[in-house]
């Protein structure tokens, strides 16, 4: 019998650091350890914009302790993840480097979408019958210390993801700025209410069946304040009157008072108090009778995903989710979805035929396809120079599950799908590493050709095949229903980048297909 896979995962969150050690036993995940230490990492990031030396040292102490615990379990791997507090810190690279030098752990920065993704996978795997995420429209809200990430899932696929400044530490800070003003509480309510209205306006009008909140302080605070019988398994169904009761429990009380009365740590108590206000506004904004609160940590969700669905399925799911999100963005910006899909199809065919020739990784295909979907999105602003508009729209989007680097790559591809070739004259391109610049050169070359082959936006090309890919020459064969006059012209204009970076000439062979 092969030894069970056993993993140790560490989450460096905004207000705490946690470890989880678990292994798979058949269809069950067995959690062996799940310690937590409060550490206000987010305070540094949200106040000063970067992580202090003190926080770095405290983090190192805890990471070493967790490594010590993990050693006692002979784990297959120890992985460390970080979210908002590290992601948003200006000195995150130095922090990550210090942690790696001193502990050997390479921190993986999770984009906001990954958090929702892992949680939704967890809901699907563990709570399928109670919360059929694949057949309903569900708004998932993940409350961190800095931001609250709201993601709308249509039948399990993300259609919109947006971050609001409603994290517990941000709210506490906001309240602090208001000082002891008698109207402070009302001002905070107004602030939350306004953010909720914005949220509602930003969501596609598809109807929300259920709302699921993911918040460790709430999962801890609810049973403590409202009674232990609230949770059934990992879910707590919370009514509007429960939310009011929770807010009453917290109103006018200090974190220390609450911590003492309900036997919570002060950081948890403070976060619960802040979130009780958000909950009230959420009920009002969405006119709900109930919301669910999920009692599971991000680490538990990642562990479940890594142990239950190891290998590629996670990547495939990520791709599906990204495509779904891209499509939803096209709708939002009234883009030509048919053209976008055609460019993606042609890009895919080009990628498939030239992947080995260009030495591209599988992941590069995702960047090319996403750029294919979004390359014309700038037309929403203006047709003229739309590739420039596409660049800044993409860099400003809340793109589900993409890291900052990946988002920049895609924006850069969209920027150079037409016009000038990528070069150091362009700031975004300059900000990339050498390796990523080469990637952008190669993928831009493909995207430019794919876009050219649907120049008429009329889907004239039915099939595309790379029929020859040799050192000196590359030959494409396309079958079209009509004569692709515009496409031929555009192709000749746009093929130069490919030829200049490969040193090969590229030839287009057109066959007519009625």
């Amino acid at each position, binding site marked *: 019998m092969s030894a069970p896979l056993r993993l140790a995962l560490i989450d460096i969150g905004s207000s705490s650091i946690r470890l989880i050690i678990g292994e798979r036993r058949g269809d069950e995940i067995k959690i062996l350890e799940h*310690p937590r230490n409060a550490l206000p990492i987010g305070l540094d990031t949200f106040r000063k914009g970067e992580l202090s030396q003190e926080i770095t040292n405290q983090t190192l102490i805890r990471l070493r302790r967790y490594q010590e615990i993990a050693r*006692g379990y*002979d784990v297959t791997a120890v992985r460390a993840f970080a979210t908002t507090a590290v992601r948003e810190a200006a000195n995150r690279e130095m922090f990550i480097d210090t942690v790696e030098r001193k502990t050997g752990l390479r921190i993986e920065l999770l984009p906001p979408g990954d958090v929702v993704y892992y949680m939704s996978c967890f809901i699907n795997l563990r709570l399928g019958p109670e919360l059929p995420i694949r057949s309903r429209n569900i708004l998932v809200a993940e409350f961190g210390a800095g931001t609250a990430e709201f993601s709308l899932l249509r039948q399990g696929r993300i259609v919109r993801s947006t971050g609001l400044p409603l994290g517990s530490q941000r709210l506490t800070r906001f309240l602090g700025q208001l000082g002891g003003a008698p109207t402070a509480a009302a001002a905070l309510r107004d602030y939350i209410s306004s953010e909720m209205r914005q949220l509602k306006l930003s969501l596609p009008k598809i109807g929300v069946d259920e709302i699921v909140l993911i918040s460790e302080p709430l999962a801890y605070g609810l049973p403590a304040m409202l009674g232990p019988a609230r949770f059934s398994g990992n879910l707590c169904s919370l009514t509007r009157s429960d939310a009011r009761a929770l807010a009453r429990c917290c109103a006018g009380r200090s974190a220390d008072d609450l911590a003492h009365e309900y036997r919570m740590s002060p950081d948890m108590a403070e976060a619960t108090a802040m979130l009780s206000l958000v909950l009230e506004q959420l009920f009002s904004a969405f006119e709900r009778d109930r919301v669910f609160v999920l009692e599971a940590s991000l680490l538990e969700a990642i562990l479940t995903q890594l142990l239950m669905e190891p290998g590629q399925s996670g990547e495939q799911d990520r791709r599906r989710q990204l495509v779904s999100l891209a499509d939803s963005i096209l709708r939002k910006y009234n883009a030509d979805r048919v053209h976008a899909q055609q460019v993606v199809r042609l890009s895919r065919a080009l990628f498939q035929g030239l992947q080995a020739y260009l030495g591209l990784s599988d992941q590069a295909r995702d960047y090319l396809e996403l750029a294919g979907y979004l390359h014309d999105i700038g037309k929403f602003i203006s047709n003229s120079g739309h590739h420039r508009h596409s660049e800044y729209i993409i860099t400003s989007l809340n793109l589900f599950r993409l890291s900052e680097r990946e988002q920049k790559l895609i924006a850069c591809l969209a920027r150079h799908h037409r016009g000038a070739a990528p070069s150091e004259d362009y700031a975004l391109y300059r900000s990339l590493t050498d390796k990523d610049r080469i990637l952008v050169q190669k993928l831009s070359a493909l995207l430019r050709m794919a876009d050219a082959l649907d120049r008429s936006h009329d889907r004239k090309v039915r099939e595309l095949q790379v029929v020859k890919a040799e050192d000196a020459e590359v030959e494409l064969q396309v079958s079209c229903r009509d004569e692709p006059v515009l496409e031929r012209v555009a192709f000749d204009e746009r093929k130069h980048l490919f030829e200049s970076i490969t040193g090969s000439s590229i030839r287009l062979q057109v066959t007519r297909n009625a």
Partner: protein
Amino acid sequence: MPEAMPVKKSDDGARYFDRDLNWLAFNERVIEEAEDQANPLLERVKFIAIFASNLDEFYMKRIAALRRVMDESPNKSDSFGFFPGEVCEATEEYIARLRGRLYGIYDSVVGHELKGQRVFLKRHAELDDRERARVREFFETALYPVMTPMAVDQGHPFPILPSKTLSFAVMLKGDKKHHLAILPIPQVIPRLFRLPESDGAAVFILTDEVIRGHLDAFFKGHEILDSAVFRVMRDSELDLDAEAVDDLLYAVEKEVRKRPRARAVSLEIEHRVSDTLLDRLRKLIDIGDGATKKIRGYLDLSFLFALPGQVSRPALQYPGFVPAGMTYDDTFRRIRKGDFLVHLPFQSFQPVLDLIQSAAEDKQVLAIKMTLYRTTETSGIVRALLRAAENGKQVTVLVELRARFDEERNISWARELEQAGCHVIYGIPSLKIHSKLAMVIRREDEGIRRYVHLGTGNYNEATARLYTDIGFFTVNEEIARDVSDTFNVISGYSQPPHWRKVVSAPHDLKPFFMHLIDQEIENQRQHGNGLISAKCNALQDREMVDKLYQAARAGVRMKLLIRGLCCMVPGVKGLSETVEIRSIVGRFLEHSRIYLFHNNGNPRIFLSSADWMKRNLDRRIELLFPIENEALKKDLSWLLDTYWQDNVKARVLLPDGSYARLKRRGEALNVQECLIKYYAARKR
């Protein structure tokens, strides 16, 4: 008991006994065992020693604490309403009476009954020539070379005398004025010296008596005007700053070193001492008249612990017994087969040793984690942990250095463990680690399995033969998670988590007890069957006592076996009519903690390291763990019933604070003797 056990009344009519006076009442029950002719003679001798030793600890801990409170806030009452001054006065009176009784029984047992058995403890003057010669030889070879008299004058300050150190105070005649010298008796020399046997008689003399016979050898050329043996008891509290302590080991070590200079709380001296010598001594020790005791007889009767072991008279001792063992080939397989309990000392401590020793050698074992509070110097457990570290296991030991009076010993083996590569953690400055838990993490075919042992008593092979405790072995996943979490919390690796099965102090245990009691109140209201049956060592937490009164007023029946101090007043109309409190003091020290809540016919039973004392519930890390296996629940339920049936060693606490033996109806039942037989007969 005192003339009348003082009782404080609260506004709502609740009543409370004082903790210290009630503890002295417990020690009075120990003296009753020394008086009890039904006990074998040498065991009665041991009870005298136990009483004496208990009283010493009481001085160093409780009297010292009361004095501190009197100095700092004399007008502040404790949580029950007792003021330190009144308690001090009442305890001193009570102790004086108990001490009189102690020396009475000492004279009777050692002075008469042992002589009848040809066991003699002689004064120097009573020795014959042959014995004198042997004693002189002993003095010259073993005592004289290691003893140093110390002059006390302007150039020589009073020597540092650790608590309990017996010393001679000697007044010497000088040319112009008299000189004081102090002659401490080294604690390493056994106090009881056995003389050669003649005609089957066992003859002993105390080292202090030997020294008295040769005192002039230390002061040649001086005339001894007066001499007396004395000892000082000092405050044993360690002054650890909860906030500022980074290195607990260093801090405890430093504080322990200060202990010989700690405030003196009592001076005991032979009654023959002259007023001049006593006054001088008092001034030098800085102790008042009220804290000085003149003793008619030997000081520190705890030397009697050693006597039975040096006299081969099995007929004068409890019949020997071998703790019932368990048979299994493989410890791990046995634990996997099903949860089980081990009831010490009736059953052997071996399964605990086996678990740790097997873990040290087993190739599949990855890690061992355990708490150590008090253990023995030659502990098999410590040796096994050292071996496990040598074998590359991850060994984590949470050492509580501050086990009172064992601090130095703990520092020594904690260092040894550290040097061997064990990860030794010294806990939290403000909280003592009192929970007893061990966990072995083993890699098996199906995955990780954690073997857990939870106990009501310490991992100490010596006390495992003397204290009644219960250990629980399990591989239950939820309990293992909780135990893992407990280790992480204590070692500062995590904040307290949600508990699954166990409940821990100081955060959750008291509210959990309150919740359980509330449920019994509700059961009483709805079904009329509220019942709490508990066995522990002390009931002193005010909130717990009040909650129990609330339950009693609601009609919940309570059968409480509280071995030691108890602040609750049972049997008071309208307050505690439904409460019966008993104490069992016998051959073994009752130490197990079992809590049973009737729960409307589906009893919830727990074992714990905690008593119902404020220190356990608020200032220590303690664990309460449920026993859910039906067969084991039945065993524990039976055990509580059997304890309740004891009519030989059980005393019932009366509303006036006195303890009375039960009126025996039917056959005599001594629960400890009964359990020896029960476990011997039971096949495992």
